[in-house]
């Protein structure tokens, strides 16, 4: 199993499920950091708060993927490589070209079409399959059902990174609106806009009610653990039997969400 750092994989999953993580990069001026290798999430958000110019992000290079695949080829016949949605990043493309460099090793590069922990859940699902074929089928079946509902404290970062304009977010106004953004069907679209965070949090829980049944649920946050816990508590009431993972948004995604972002992520059944 190979994924990239935007899967926001919980640390222990690497060993539990045997997942390789290829880091994307975050670039502050002349300095390049590998996501969660050269910089921790906490350091990143601290720097983000004081940076005069916003950082940029970039996909791993094909060569970096090739290195990982080559290493795996010493022990395995093939792998599944699940990555950040191709509509958002060149990561899938880099993985595909990287895979072509390694002969005699079967790489199934799969486009998750989404961001953050749904990718981790897809990896988990794949890791629990017996064969490469079964894993591929299980992932492909779930890709169209991955959902992310995000609350950004400000749209500034997403706008600067070019992933969404104010018009697309239904924010053609000077009012400080907080849109709830829904990542589904390879699109980021606003589903609701509210004026306060607590209202947004209530709406996030209510929104999930309309999405049931779901499996693999997590609450993601960028430096907002208490609010994430509030959302998780709300979700537990809706889904008493479901484990609710609380995950942290990493540097690369954080570059585009900015601090204090919150999200509910899940896979629809």
């Amino acid at each position: 199993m190979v994924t990239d750092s935007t899967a926001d994989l919980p640390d222990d999953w690497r060993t539990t499920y045997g997942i390789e993580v290829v880091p994307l990069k975050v670039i502050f001026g002349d300095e390049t950091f590998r996501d969660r290798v050269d910089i921790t999430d906490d350091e990143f958000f601290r720097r983000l708060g004081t940076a005069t110019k916003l950082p940029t992000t970039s996909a791993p290079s094909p060569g970096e993927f090739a290195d990982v695949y080559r290493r795996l080829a010493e022990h395995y016949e093939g792998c599944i490589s699940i990555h950040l949605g191709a509509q958002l990043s060149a990561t899938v493309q880099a993985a595909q070209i990287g895979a072509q460099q390694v002969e005699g090793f079967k790489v199934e590069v799969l486009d998750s079409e989404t961001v953050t922990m749904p990718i981790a859940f897809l990896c988990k699902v794949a890791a629990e399959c017996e064969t490469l074929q079964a894993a591929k089928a299980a992932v492909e079946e779930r890709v169209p059902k991955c959902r992310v509902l995000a609350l950004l404290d400000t749209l500034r970062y997403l706008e600067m990174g070019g992933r969404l304009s104010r018009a697309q977010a239904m924010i053609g106004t000077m009012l400080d609106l907080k849109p709830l953004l829904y990542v589904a069907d390879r699109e980021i679209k606003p589903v609701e806009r509210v004026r306060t965070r607590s209202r947004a949090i209530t709406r996030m829980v209510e929104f999930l009610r309309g999405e049931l049944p779901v499996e693999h649920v997590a609450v993601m946050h960028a430096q907002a653990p208490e609010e994430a816990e509030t959302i998780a508590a709300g979700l537990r009431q809706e889904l008493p039997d479901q484990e609710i993972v609380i995950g942290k948004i990493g540097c690369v995604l954080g570059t585009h969400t900015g601090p204090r972002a919150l999200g509910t992520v899940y896979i629809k059944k």
Partner: protein
Amino acid sequence: MASMASRRPVGVDGPLFKQALLGSLNWLAANHEEVNRLNVFPVPDGDTGTNMLLTLQSAVEDIKESNAAEVSKIAKLASHGSLMGARGNSGVILSQIFRGFARAVEGKSALTPRELAAAFEEAANAAYRAVNKPTEGTILTVAREAGRAATTAAGDVEATVPGVIAAAAAGARAAVLKTPSQLQILRDAGVVDAGGFGLQLIIEGMLKTVEESESFQLDTAAMKPKAAQVALDLPEGGWGYCTEFLIDGAGLDVDVIRGEIEALGNSVLVVGEPELVKVHVHTDDPTSVITLAGGFGKLLKLNVGDMSTQHKRILDSESAAGRPPRANGVGLVAVVAGSGLVDIFRGLGVDAIVEGGQTMNPSTQDMLTAVDGVPYDEVVLLPNNGNVILAASQVPSLTKKKVHVIETHSVPQGVAAVVAFRPERNGADNAAAMKAEAARVQTIEVTHAVRDTRSNGLKVKKGDVIGLINDKLEFAGTDYVEVVNKALGKLGPDSYELVTVYRGEGASDDELAKLESAIRSSFPGLEVEVQQGGQQHYPFILSVE
């Protein structure tokens, strides 16, 4: 590079190619911010220039240390380095361009102009092969056109290396300028393709170096820096003029006319008969087109339209009411007064504004006209004032359209209602959600008493500052801060998160600043947002939610 000038290279060898790539790097480094600026929402690489620069840096990293005499060795290092350092879609494609180039020159120590052109072409082919679904109007197209132009130039028996690279650069530049005609998204954003422009810079950087090394006569330093602006000028300097007319004459040759017009612009359409020819062209220089055409015959129905103005008009109308039609087919009409508030409601997506409010109550007819004027069969109407609700409630019975009147008593309620509107939800559900959200907001209105009065147990003198909570007179005093503090205290700030202050015409900067800091210090738990409302009669309207 002085040492290079004394050499007379017969072709592109290792050292020359190395110098050329370093030239590319310098040129791209000097201009990559311009590439970044060609950002198109929602294309992911808003940092295309940076990504390409970093990819190119990685490509030349190992080359710097190499003294290889063979072009093949330098090309291979560039290919490997770029693959390792490729970032972003454009960077990845650039790495494939280097890869294709390296394959084409494998085993060669130096390239003839013809071999160089062939390598450019193979570089473009490799890039196309690397992409699942090649899109025209991108770096791919620019690579291909550069290769084609190079091959054409190389066909000349007297072709030189600088000549071939110059042709490639010119081909790239022309292709970049055409990218908006190939991709809607570029056209909409008014920019050329960023990745393609980056590739143009890379080839131009090569050209500069190679020309210098051969003591080429052209003053590249003075001429080439404009290249960056040429591309950027397209959106900024305008989209040219859409020029149309008929030529009335005898024995007109459509092909000859088309050929001459084509030299002056693009999107050329020339059709007709020997007696009458219709011409359509987009040109920066309509005068020359008209003069030229006038030589063929008499011009009829001459029409020159400034496409920049057209473009701007499209943008303007999109930003106002002319947004793409809503999925739910529901329109929004609001009664608002005050320039700032009008902008706020427009910005939130309201299709038509009826001017009016506290003292200028609009008539039922005014609202009916607005409702009938919006291009939707179902309309949500927001009166936004207690004195307007009754007139608004008459509207549904007077129109064939389905009208939902949300009884918003104040501007804050109106804003809350519009914010809750969702373009994909049907009218009835929207109306219910908007009503519920409006009810969640508390309104504080601050004004001056127009006469002495006694109301709600308060004794008020003319000119006093008075505060109303949800239309009910609650406090009177001598200054704004005192009244607002009392009103917020009464609402119980612990139950609320955000105060939005809409500043009216009658409030000075100083009064606004005082009020804002007073709220912040008295109620540190509340967020305070200030908006220019521009409303009359109420120096301040506060929304508490």
